[in-house]
């Protein structure tokens, strides 16, 4: 069987079961073995188990040992600590006799193999030491003691293990007892004993029940007894009988729960077992009747033992086949599917901008193809009465739709090429531009490549909490460096500036540099909220991860509490002032009212909840019951308020105040009219009013009829406002699920996202991009790097023990009716940053439009004389998007595809790492959990991305109806 980490080996050696990955599911929170095992049986039956050596056992069997001497096993380079520690305690313990089972787990040889390899002088020393140990141990043994020496695995030529080659999976087994064990001489060529066989053997030798899930077979040689051949055979038969009954019971109950054992094989096993048992009862009756066993009975005994053996071996073979099995074909198929999906996203995102009829031919038809294939396959499976393999149907449907896409794409390709090829001069320019575009792509894609490459090394996966910020900082610095290299940051040089000694930077550069510095500080600070993995022993988890209730110092607790509440209030204030700045807080719609009054209420509820949750239990004395209610009530209030807010957002996402000014002096349609903030604005107000009055008089005189004019406040940022409100609400919900002090990390998250958006906007402005509707790759990649960085900075790690299980009980007492709700809560807690960044993804498209405002606003007074045509100033900020709805939807699609491409590439790297390194030593500790977390994160991110985009589309619909209503009026 494939030998994974030592932990799985020990599991196999004590439960008699095969090491499987799924059993992690039964005990997420601890490493402790919860299945029935040898040690549990021993302890239950009052035997004393003494352990010395590798401290992995401590986590696996907490409080099971009568006495124990653990030594740290993590450092592979340390050859002697564990062995010397064992040798120090071994002989005194053996001599004292206060034990029934003594386990000594030496590690020196294994570590020596890892460090030096099997042919090193150090290894010779180590083996000699072990030899000496055995020699002297044998002298200390009593007559009724059995000594079993076994290696849990072998090693390759290089001293490693974890693969499935002959040298790695085979190890020596040495059995010794002072009383003669074997009736006959030991065989010349002993057959290999599967590791799981040790479990039933030891259990029955010590007289305890065989562990429930054992599938091993007893080693008959050890049960030969001291009598003649017949009594030995009888004893072996009874042992086999017990063992077979146990295995049969286990297989029976297992097949009731899980369906992965093939039915016909189970049937076959069942028949084997029942016939053997039948004969066993017959034989026993005959043997008990006769005082002297006739020779033909003896041979029947032998054949019966053979049948039991056959049964046990076949049972184990069946289990091995279905449990410890990889499906290379399916793995490769899955990887290919993900890879082609990534390719599809990339091609589609490049193509989306190009043509109009793209949607139907390249996206809709392939989708139909996929559906048709799925339905056909489903029907075929249903008619042939085979079990419907949902996975296969789904993947073939996906493959069909992808094939459809690529076929359509290929069909269109020649046409495009011909079109592009018709004007020859264009082609050469196109080539050079394409080359330049490729070079421009190289730097963000290079960072992405590094990130994906990092998934293939266990050290880098372990250190990913530091890799992601490093790459993010590098990406941003590279962006600034590239802008500088291209001369975008400097004003075109004139002779004047060369004479003057001043730096010739543009003014915007200082904003950009400030944003970059703030971003780097945010990235660095967020590193303080780290969780630790056991692979880095010297790491201490961040103090901020523990809930406030665990703080002893009352003053510190109060201080932190106040800080957290102040941060929450600050967040609300910041969001409100942002909305006010863009004029989205003026109307009296329910949503705006919710932002005005509901947000503080949510903060109040969260603050109350934190206060109640972090108070010590005994301090409140009589109020205990009240506290019990409050602990549940406040989170529910927050849940309720947040869902009300989100519903309001869905129902009416317009945060626009429309002032119908038909009667008043005709003002002009101006999307932005915030609160006049400075005196300068006030100075402009009166001349403006005068001018407008003049103009309206003029137009009235000219046209005769009055045109309805309307002032809309906050129309220019209506999309972003909806997203910001949604993000804030989600942020509140997620903060509630985390421990109190992680709200600091969330504040950093919002700040960093804000900085990223601004850097992106500034960089675009400086680079002077021609296409305002496409989001560049570096922005998407930095957005995703920030998302994965904050996965770690909100105190998470892609390992099961690091999951914040407390989140399941926010607003609930310790019981849940279903498993769904706690799963959702814990999932939201774990993937908080994925959720926030994915929902906020459309902001990358919208932000440059929102921020374009100040410059045109500044220029407004100058433009005033020319403002006679209202259309000039009508479509500002995000209303530019409405100007060309086709382009807007294309841009949204393109952004989503780019985001999915980057996400998918990361997932692909992770999946490939798990596939290629499936025999790696660290696969179950590092790669497999990382793969699980990454794929779950991918699912969560994609869903949230869809939600974010659909929210933007909902706002778009609302804006359309708003405009049509205006026209009706």
């Amino acid at each position, binding site marked *: 069987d494939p030998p994974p980490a030592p932990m799985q080996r020990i599991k196999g050696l004590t439960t008699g079961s095969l090491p499987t990955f799924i059993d992690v599911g039964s005990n997420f929170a601890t490493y402790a073995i919860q299945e029935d095992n040898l040690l549990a049986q021993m302890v239950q039956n009052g035997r004393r188990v003494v352990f010395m050596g590798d401290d992995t056992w401590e986590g696996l069997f907490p409080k099971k040992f009568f006495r124990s001497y653990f030594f740290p096993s993590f450092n592979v380079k340390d050859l002697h600590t564990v062995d010397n520690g064992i040798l120090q305690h071994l002989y005194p313990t053996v001599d004292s006799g206060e034990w029934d089972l003594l386990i000594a787990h030496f590690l020196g040889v294994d570590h020596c193999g890892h460090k030096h390899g099997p042919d090193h002088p150090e290894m010779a020393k180590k083996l000699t030491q072990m030899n000496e140990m055995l020699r002297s141990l044998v002298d200390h043994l009593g007559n009724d003691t059995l000594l079993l020496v076994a290696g849990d695995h072998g090693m390759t030529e290089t001293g490693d293990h974890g693969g499935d080659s002959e040298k790695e999976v085979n190890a020596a087994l040495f059995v010794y007892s002072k009383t003669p064990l074997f009736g006959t001489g030991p065989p010349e060529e002993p057959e290999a004993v599967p590791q799981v066989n040790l479990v039933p053997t030891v259990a029955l030798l010590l007289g305890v029940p065989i562990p429930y899930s054992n599938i091993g077979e007893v080693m008959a040689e050890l049960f030969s007894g001291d009598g003649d051949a017949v009594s030995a055979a009888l004893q072996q038969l009874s042992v086999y009988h017990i063992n077979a009954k146990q295995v049969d019971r286990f297989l029976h109950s297992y097949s009731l729960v899980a369906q992965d054992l093939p039915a016909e094989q189970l049937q076959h096993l069942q028949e084997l077992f029942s016939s053997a048992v039948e004969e066993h009862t017959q034989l026993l009756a005959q043997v008990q009747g006769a005082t002297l066993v006739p020779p033909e009975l003896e041979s029947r005994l032998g054949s019966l033992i053979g049948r039991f053996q056959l049964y046990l071996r076949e049972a184990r073979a069946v289990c091995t086949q279905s449990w410890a099995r990889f499906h290379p074909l399916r793995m490769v198929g899955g990887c290919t599917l993900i890879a082609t999906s990534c390719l599809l996203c990339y091609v589609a995102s490049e193509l989306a901008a190009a043509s109009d009829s793209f949607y139907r031919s390249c996206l809709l038809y392939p989708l139909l193809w996929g559906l048709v294939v799925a339905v056909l396959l489903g029907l075929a499976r249903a008619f042939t009465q085979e079990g419907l393999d949902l996975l296969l149907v789904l993947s073939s449907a996906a493959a069909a739709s992808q094939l459809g896409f690529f076929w359509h794409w290929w069909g269109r390709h020649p046409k495009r090429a011909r079109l592009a090829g018709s004007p020859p001069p264009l082609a050469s320019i196109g080539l050079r531009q394409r080359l330049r575009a490729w070079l421009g792509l190289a730097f963000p894609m290079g960072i992405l490549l590094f990130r994906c490459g990092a998934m293939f090394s266990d050290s880098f996966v372990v*250190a990913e909490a530091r890799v992601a910020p490093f790459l993010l900082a590098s990406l941003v610095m590279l962006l600034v460096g590239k802008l500088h290299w291209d001369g975008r940051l400097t004003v075109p*040089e004139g002779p004047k500036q*060369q004479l003057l000694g001043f730096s010739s930077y543009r003014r915007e550069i200082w904003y950009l540099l400030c944003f970059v510095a703030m971003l780097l500080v945010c990235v660095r600070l967020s590193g303080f909220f780290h969780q630790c993995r056991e692979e880095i022993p010297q790491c201490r988890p961040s103090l901020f991860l523990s809930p406030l209730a665990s703080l002893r110092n009352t003053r510190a607790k109060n201080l932190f509490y106040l800080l957290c509440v102040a941060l929450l209030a600050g967040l609300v204030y910041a969001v409100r002032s942002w909305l006010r700045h863009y004029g989205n807080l003026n109307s009296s719609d329910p949503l705006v009212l919710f932002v005005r009054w509901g947000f503080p209420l949510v903060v109040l509820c969260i603050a109350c909840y934190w206060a109640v949750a972090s108070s010590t239990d005994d301090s409140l004395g009589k109020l205990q019951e009240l506290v019990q209610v409050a602990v549940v009530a406040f989170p529910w209030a927050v849940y309720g308020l947040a869902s009300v807010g989100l519903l309001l957002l869905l129902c009416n996402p317009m945060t626009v105040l429309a002032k119908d000014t038909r009667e008043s002096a005709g003002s002009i349609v101006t999307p932005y009219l915030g609160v006049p903030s400075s005196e300068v604005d006030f100075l402009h107000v009166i001349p403006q009013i005068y001018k407008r009055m003049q103009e309206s008089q003029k137009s009235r005189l000219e046209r005769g009829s009055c045109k309805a004019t309307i002032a809309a406040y906050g129309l220019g940022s209506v999309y972003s406002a909806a997203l910001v409100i949604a993000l804030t609400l989600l942020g509140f919900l997620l903060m509630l699920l985390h421990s109190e002090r992680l709200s600091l990390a969330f504040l950093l998250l919002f700040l960093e996202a804000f900085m990223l958006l601004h850097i992106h906007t500034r960089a675009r402005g400086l680079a002077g991009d021609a296409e305002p509707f496409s989001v560049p790759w570096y922005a998407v990649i930095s957005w995703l790097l920030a998302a994965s960085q904050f996965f770690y900075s909100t105190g998470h790690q892609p390992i099961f023990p690091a999951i914040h299980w407390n989140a399941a009980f926010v607003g609930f007492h310790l019981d849940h009716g279903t498993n769904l709700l706690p799963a959702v809560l814990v999932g939201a807690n774990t993937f908080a940053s994925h959720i926030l960044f994915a929902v906020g993804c459309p902001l990358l498209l919208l932000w440059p439009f929102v921020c374009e405002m100040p410059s045109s606003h500044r220029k407004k007074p100058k433009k005033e004389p020319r403002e006679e045509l209202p259309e000039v100033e009508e479509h500002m900020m995000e209303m530019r998007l409405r100007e060309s709805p086709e382009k807007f939807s294309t841009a949204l699609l393109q952004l989503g595809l780019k985001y999915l491409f980057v996400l998918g590439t990361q997932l692909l790297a992770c999946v490939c790492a798990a596939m290629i390194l499936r025999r790696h030593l660290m696969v179950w500790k590092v790669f497999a959990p990382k793969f699980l977390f990454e794929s779950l994160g991918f699912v969560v991110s994609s869903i949230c991305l869809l939600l974010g985009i659909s929210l933007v589309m909902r706002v778009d619909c609302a804006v359309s109806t708003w405009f049509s209503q205006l026209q009706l009026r």
Partner: protein
Amino acid sequence: MKEAEVRRLLAANLLCVFSVILTAVVPAFFWDGFSVLGTHLAWLCICSVCVSTLSIILHLVLKPNLSPKRSSFAHKISRFLKCCMYFFMSCILFHAIIVLYGAHISWSVTETFLFAVLLSTFTTLQCLCILGPNIQAWIRVFSKNGAMCIWESSLQITTMCSILGAWFGAFPIPLDWDRPWQVWPISCSLGATFGYGAGLVIAPLWIHWNRKQLTYKSR
């Protein structure tokens, strides 16, 4: 372009490379137990001092940039003081950037600072030598088509290579190989040094190969 100048550049750069190698080898003869990895901080100091003295001497000897118009003594002193201030500021700035990139804030401050000094020696000091304390010239040199002579092209290449080397030097730190050179900041400073050396060698060759394309604007 004069071939002779390229040759001079090559000679100067090779001298720099040679001096870097010497700093790793020579002190071992005078000081028992010296090694680049073992007594890394000492090597950092020695390397920084040697490279900076050599650069200053080369600058004084070769005079790659035209002599300033006013060369009064007071002016020279103020220039020198300005250079020192710039160098110190760049050390602080590099230290801050390294910390922002993930170096520990309170542990091994000396190591981080000496690494920042080394980086400043490889980048800022060279800029100061060739361009003088003239920020505007720096801005010009570090942009596309900004170099006006081969010395400035060489400066571009060595600076970028040093920083790139330091960046790549951070990559092996998380690996679990337990090598002595994975300790902070050895891999990064070695990376920066190798990058600097590579830049020094590459620069004349690159200029030599691209001498047709390189047309420097006259000042």
